[in-house]
């Protein structure tokens, strides 16, 4: 009964989304106020019914309804409540429903918070969002309904993949989808501008906070995934350049370029067509990622169960939206050129370099991810492109990017007056180099060229990011959220670079066989294996080992690590024990039983690894703060009266 209700609600949502799309887009095209007015309420209705459908699916999971095919394949009677809910998005069908729910939520937010937008423009934005909703809802109803029944009902479910039975993993897809779907909002704003044929700086001002919010979600989503992989998978890695990871990283890079390009468009009315193109690219990569992960063309541990017919449907959607919007771009963009200029050294040129390098980086990752696929498709052989390639190649655009970042932050618009800040920057660079050398040689007793370069670049950016806020505070000037946010975000970038450099340069990994009482020394710490005992959980059983860590005789931590076998899927998983410190992590993971009480253990020393996620969180924090800048609010009071006069309908 309830699943059928959910299915019905989804159909209703589809119809409402059709209305949202039709009345929004056609209404704006024909200038019919009454039609345009339907878009926002329709969006609200879509949200209500999609939420209802999602609620019905969640209910089926919570009540162990194994007559629903999706529940039977993803859940189990012994699965704890929290993971039963997380299982809703644990596989393909449910995760697409989550995607649709988040899209409906974003559309509702746009409908509710964009009262100051001109009516036609708003209608178009909602119309495009409605169109995207229609496509995804059709997709799910036609090929991947989570409400399909299983007859006869299963006695019990196949259980959620044990790797997903973890809090961070439960939170990672919703956060990531918030980001992915957020790119569709920027896309909608871009297409709305293209449809109307005009774009002024007001457009950039409206688009920026939404794009920033999407970027923040994407940053947090990727960070959650990386952190989870580190502490759950047991091999202590935080990024593998897996196709699915790349599928999320590419939109992130392009969205980063977009938020910077929007700054130029807002301030100086430049790069209009380029910004539109970036907004389309960000969403395209988002859709492309969805395609790659669900179609079965790529081999990845992340990939959902694949089905070529689903792949074809998504590909058709992809081509419709992307080729369609890019064609619209090709037709309209030539009219958007602006004639303003800027000096060769200026904020504009630094941001242009930022964009070019970020897009180049995204292009490299796209190439590396798709090359094996191309070769295989055309029978040119099978190759693998993995971390060795990406790790070396990725530095080519990013090293210049980080270097320019430290300087570009201080360039002013139109013509950079770097003379004023030059001496401070040189001093900072020198200090960064010295600090890098001290860190490398005094801290870790070794340092290759790349290590010194990495530390110097990271520290330089960190210091450079603080220059302006500190100067403003000293001059008792106001510090807007935008400026503070930017400083925090860039500081986070520097911190991230320092963290990555530290881990890549100085990490130590040791696999040893230990009997109870035996110990091994790694990086000055002594790891003593205390022994194992059985361990039991709600839906698993296994073995737990305890390891005592001391340093120069003084106790540091006692860690426990487990090897679990989940009862239903019978897959062994490992829970690592991690001793977290601000400057290093100590990581132990239990391996195989070698017999006679001896076990193999993997011990890792990870210096500065926390800086990686802390840096990323700071980036997200800074971006979020900038999105909340008062000028986006204050404007509403100023433009509301302007929206009323007839002249306002001339603006987009």
């Amino acid at each position, binding site marked *: 009964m309830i699943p059928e209700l959910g299915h019905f609600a989804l159909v209703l949502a589809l119809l409402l989304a059709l209305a949202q799309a039709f009345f929004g887009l056609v209404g704006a095209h024909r200038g019919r106020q009454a039609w345009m007015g339907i878009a926002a309420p329709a969006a609200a209705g879509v949200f209500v019914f999609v939420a209802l459908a999602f609620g019905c699916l969640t209910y089926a999971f919570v009540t162990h309804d194994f007559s629903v095919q999706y529940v039977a394949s993803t859940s189990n009677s012994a699965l704890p409540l929290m993971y039963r809910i997380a299982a809703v998005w644990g596989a393909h069908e449910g995760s697409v429903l989550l995607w649709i729910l988040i899209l409906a939520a974003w559309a509702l937010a746009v409908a509710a918070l964009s009262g100051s937008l001109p009516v036609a423009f708003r209608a178009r934005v909602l119309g495009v969002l409605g169109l995207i909703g229609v496509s995804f809802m059709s997709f799910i109803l036609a090929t991947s309904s989570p409400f399909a029944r299983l007859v006869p009902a299963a006695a019990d479910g196949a259980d959620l*993949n044990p790797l997903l039975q973890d809090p961070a993993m439960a939170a990672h897809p919703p956060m990531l989808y918030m980001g992915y779907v957020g790119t569709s909002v920027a896309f909608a704003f871009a297409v709305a501008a293209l449809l109307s044929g005009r774009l002024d700086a007001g457009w950039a001002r409206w688009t920026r906070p939404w794009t920033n919010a999407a970027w923040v979600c994407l940053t947090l989503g990727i960070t959650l995934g990386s952190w989870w992989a580190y502490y759950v998978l047991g091999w202590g890695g935080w990024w593998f350049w897996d196709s699915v990871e790349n599928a999320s990283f590419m939109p992130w890079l392009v969205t980063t370029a977009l938020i910077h390009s929007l700054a130029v468009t807002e301030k*100086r009315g430049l790069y209009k067509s380029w910004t539109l193109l970036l907004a389309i690219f960000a969403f395209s990569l988002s859709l492309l990622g969805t395609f790659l992960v669900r179609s079965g063309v790529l081999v990845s541990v992340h990939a959902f169960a694949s089905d070529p017919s689903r792949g074809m449907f998504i590909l058709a959607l992809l081509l419709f939206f992307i080729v369609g919007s890019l064609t619209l771009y090709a037709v309209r963009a030539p009219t958007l050129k602006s004639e303003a200029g800027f000096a060769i050294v200026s904020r504009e*040129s630094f941001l242009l370099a930022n964009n070019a390098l970020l897009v180049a980086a995204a*292009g490299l990752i796209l190439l590396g991810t798709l090359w094996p696929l191309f070769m295989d498709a055309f029978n040119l052989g099978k190759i693998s492109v993995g971390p060795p390639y990406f790790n070396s190649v990725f530095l080519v655009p990013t090293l210049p990017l980080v270097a320019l970042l430290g300087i570009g932050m201080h360039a002013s618009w139109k013509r950079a007056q770097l003379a004023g800040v030059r001496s401070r920057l040189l001093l900072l660079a020198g200090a960064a180099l010295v600090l890098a050398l001290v860190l490398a040689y005094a801290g870790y007793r070794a340092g290759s060229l790349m290590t010194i370069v990495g530390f110097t670049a990271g520290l330089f950016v960190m210091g450079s990011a603080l220059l302006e806020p500190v100067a403003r505070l000293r001059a008792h*000037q106001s510090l807007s959220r935008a400026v503070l946010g930017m400083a925090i975000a860039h500081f986070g970038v520097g911190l991230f670079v320092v963290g990555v450099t530290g881990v890549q340069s100085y990490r130590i990994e040791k696999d040893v066989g230990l009997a109870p009482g035996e110990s091994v020394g790694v990086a000055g710490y002594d790891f003593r294996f205390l022994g194992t005992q059985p361990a039991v959980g709600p839906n698993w059983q296994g073995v737990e080992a305890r390891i005592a860590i001391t340093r120069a005789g003084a106790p540091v931590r006692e860690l426990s690590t487990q090897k679990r076998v989940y009862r239903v899927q019978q897959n062994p998983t490992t829970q690592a024990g991690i001793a977290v410190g601000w400057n290093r992590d100590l990581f132990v993971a239990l391996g195989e039983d070698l017999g006679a009480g001896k076990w193999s253990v993997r011990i890792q020393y990870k210096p500065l690894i926390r800086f990686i996620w802390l840096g990323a969180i700071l980036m997200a924090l800074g971006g979020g703060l900038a999105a909340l800048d008062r000028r986006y609010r204050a404007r509403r009071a100023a433009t509301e009266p302007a929206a009323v006069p007839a002249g306002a309908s001339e603006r987009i």
Partner: protein
Amino acid sequence: MRRAALGLFAALALVSLGAHAIDSGQAFADPVRQGRYERLIHELRCVQCQNVTIADSNVGLAADLRRQIREMIGAGQSDEQIRRFMTERYGDFVLYDPPLRPRTYFLWAAPALLLALAVGIVGRAAVRRSRKPLGEDPDESLADREKPV
């Protein structure tokens, strides 16, 4: 039917990624050799698994290949010889660092090409823009807020 069979065989042959690799062999006393070993096992793909290195996989094949590499290093073989040993048996697919062949020239040239393209575009645009008049800002009220101190 065959597809289902392959799926079954794959499911049984594959081990969950959650179970990670642990070497129970002795580490090399010589740090150079140990370093070579660690680098090589992170460069080779576990062919039986879903995209993971033989360092991080604990399926039987990965353990066997790690043992093979350890023995070959111990016998004095070079990194190149070890890689060739692997590709002769498993093809280029087993290398995560794609070998430089005519088919991968573009892949390896791409970073330099893209960087050159980026520099070219930025340079050209910057020069062109520098010749135009600076022009008015659409929104001068933002000037004070954004001007760096």
